[in-house]
């Protein structure tokens, strides 16, 4: 995605406040700058032990980034077993820190996508 498109997307997303109820717990950024990012991982060919290792690597990468002052939280993992992939949801100050965490966990081709979350009314 060209930088100018990404910047436009970030600007749009900043204008849309996140539903605080959808994100229990302390946020890594102030109310107007809570941003969610989704990273999809291909799990084809991975054994259960390797899957566990993958998630441990991501968790450790987040912990290390946080210790260094990076603003990121690993919120949720959504597995899609039938399609052998998983979706990892992060809350972070920006996509670069999410990319950095995935780099540390050795996902050099990870696509970081900005997403929005809300809880339906009722």
């Amino acid at each position: 995605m060209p930088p100018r498109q990404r910047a436009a997307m970030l600007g749009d997303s900043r204008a849309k406040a996140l539903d605080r109820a959808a994100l229990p717990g302390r946020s890594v950024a102030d109310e107007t700058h809570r941003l969610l990012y989704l990273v999809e991982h291909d799990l084809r060919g991975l054994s259960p032990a390797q899957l566990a290792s993958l998630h441990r690597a991501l968790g450790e990468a987040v912990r290390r980034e946080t210790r260094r002052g990076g603003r990121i939280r690993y919120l949720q993992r959504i597995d899609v077993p039938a399609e052998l992939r998983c979706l990892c949801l992060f809350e972070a100050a920006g996509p670069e820190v999410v990319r950095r965490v995935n780099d540390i966990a050795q996902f050099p081709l990870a696509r970081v996508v900005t997403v929005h979350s809300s809880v339906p009314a009722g």
Partner: protein
Amino acid sequence: MGLGVPGMLRGELTEFVGRRAELAQVRQALGSARLVTLTGPGGIGKTRLALRAAARAQRAFPDGVWLARLGGLRDSALLVPEVARSLGLSDQSGRWVVAALSEYLAGRHLLLVLDQCEHLADACAVLADALLRACPRLRVIATSRHVLGVAGEVTMAVPPMSVPPMSVPPAARSAGPEELLRFEAVRLFAARAAAVMPGFAVDAASGPVVAGICRRLDGIPLAVELAAVRLRSLSAGQILDRLDSRFALLSGGGPAGQPQHRTLEAALEWSYELLTEAEQAMWGRMSVFAGSFDLDAAEMVCAGDGIATETVVDLVDALVAKSVLSRAAGDGRARYRLLDTIGEFGLRKLRARNGEGRSRGRHRRWYAALAARQEAFGPGRAGWIASLDADHENLRAALEFCLSEPGELAAGAELACDLWRYWETHGHLTEGRRILAGLLEKLDDSAEVRPRALWVAGFLALVQGDLPGARALLETGLSAAGHAGDAGAAAYASSYLSYVMYYLGEAERGRVLAETALTMHRDSGDQIGVVMSLTQLGSTDLHGQELTRAAGRFGECARVCERTGNIWYQTYAQRGLGVATWLLGDPEAAATLVRAALHTTREIDHPIGVALCLDALAWITASQKRAAGAATLLGAADAAWAAIPAALQPALQGHRDVAIAAAREALTGRAFRSAFAAGAAMSQAEAIAFALHEPPRGAGRPAGPDGDRVRLTRREQEVARLVAQGQSNSQIAGELVISARTAETHVRHIMDKLGVSTRAQIAAWSAARPPMSPRPGMPGRGSGADHGTRPGRSRGVQPAGENP
């Protein structure tokens, strides 16, 4: 090929001095801990200590000791690909890279040295943790300026070398030479001094001065070495006086609490000031190199602005003599390397002169020219690929420079595209994709190179089995090529998009795209594109049972290849024509064609080509009712795929299944398993020789660098390793607790078996053949790890039995 596998331990070029206590500590630590991290500031000797400890521990690790140099790696996401490259592995599967590496290491008893982890500490820690959990017999030695912080890590701070103390009574300082030589720093100084000034010895006169130098330099090995080599032109007293002056300038300055850092910085400054202006400039300019480099590269990058090209060789020689530059261990052409600490200092000097941009630009242009030779398909392929392999770190550094400089993006994209075949055949798919993704993100939409970058990125994604990613990139590339009027890029995008369509089950659209690509290539006169398209269409016809048409396509392809010298695609054409001929009912002619392809494939470093040929010969042999030979070839092919690792294309799996069934039916279960296992246990060279009906190479002939097996006894292998470390017969005898005469006999037997006459030749053979470790590109035969692509199990999508 010249340098062999990057991570193989090689003999040391200078004598290793001292560090007995530290070596014992490392050995003890490795006995109980699986990760030992050597820490300390730059220049303290962490790497030398780690390598020495690793070399001494080799006997305890049947699968060898391997080194991953990480100093030149800036992108933490490429840590695993770099470690894999150091192990001689290529992974084309597209799975999580850590998983693939873990599987390879899981069954192995191996020691891995991760050198210079500090700038990738988090990634190294995460990787080490994952590998140690998954690989129970793996041990790791890491060197870093900081602790990694991994559970179970044992850290060892590497101290400076011991120096004679400053005793209070002046008379006590004038200890005798024997007394002084008890101190490691003094011994190191003496060893390095004797190398530049034969006959130098620590004696009653020089001893106190040498002791003073070592104390002044705090026993920091690099600093001591830089001082010692100055005896070529200064006396020991002059060295000490100048050091005192340099340190007086530093008193009161520098970062607090980092005395060793200040000492080393002062030593580097002092050494720098003693150089001529040209030598100083040379040091700075060479600092843009990553890893090792050769003289041609040095001339290109460093000449100009006051340095004449013809003087570069003398300047290199001078800097080697002054221990600024090291001669890198290896075979073939001379290569040089700057120690990381020395390179960092040089880079600071270069930046201070505002010279970094110019030098990096020249560096980029040199390696771009290397890549642009594009000899992927002709007789010069092996040499070109070897050059790229040797300069992999520099290619990466050039691309990183391009990514960081807006004015260099287009040049970076051209360089990346020129490397497409190198990345594909050597399994650097992840690295290639990442670099191209970074370039495409920054390239302007109207950039002339953009369509090409898109289809190359799509091609790499295709080879790695990422069909959705490949489709998106290739369709975008096709569209961009159309808008830009780039017929060449449009043709390649069409060609590779046709593969994607076939795999996605849209065969008709795939055929249309392939035919369109062929027409475009013919129109543009791109003979490489023509043969590629003919191969592709031939494969499609083959799979669609249009056998006569397939034979026609492959036949035309072979004729064009012969005319244009394209030996790469000639192997595809020969093999494809062979398979078509077989299916048309002439197995003898088919086998002749496939063997011709295999013969050529052997010369061009094409692991997938070898595997395809072995598989095809297995099917043909099975159809000729030669069941035992077929089973052996099936085993050899299975192992060849596993070594890459890759898998036979699903469309061809049916032929393999038929061959297996035929062989099993004709043989007893035991006979089949035995024949299959025999093939699986062969080295690549042996498998090819078997398939080509060549006689096995006997003992006594010199072993070639491609992995021929010479049968040395276990003891003889140990002796060969120690010879490679530079040990004399008496030293070997002491090490192995045998008599000197027995050691001498072993050395003689080794020479007879290898067909060599010098210890240097034994060392060269040993360096190319790590003990029970995989041949480059062919790891894991019989070592326990199951990479096996057992019949029916796919590990990664290979775009074609006739690979693009």
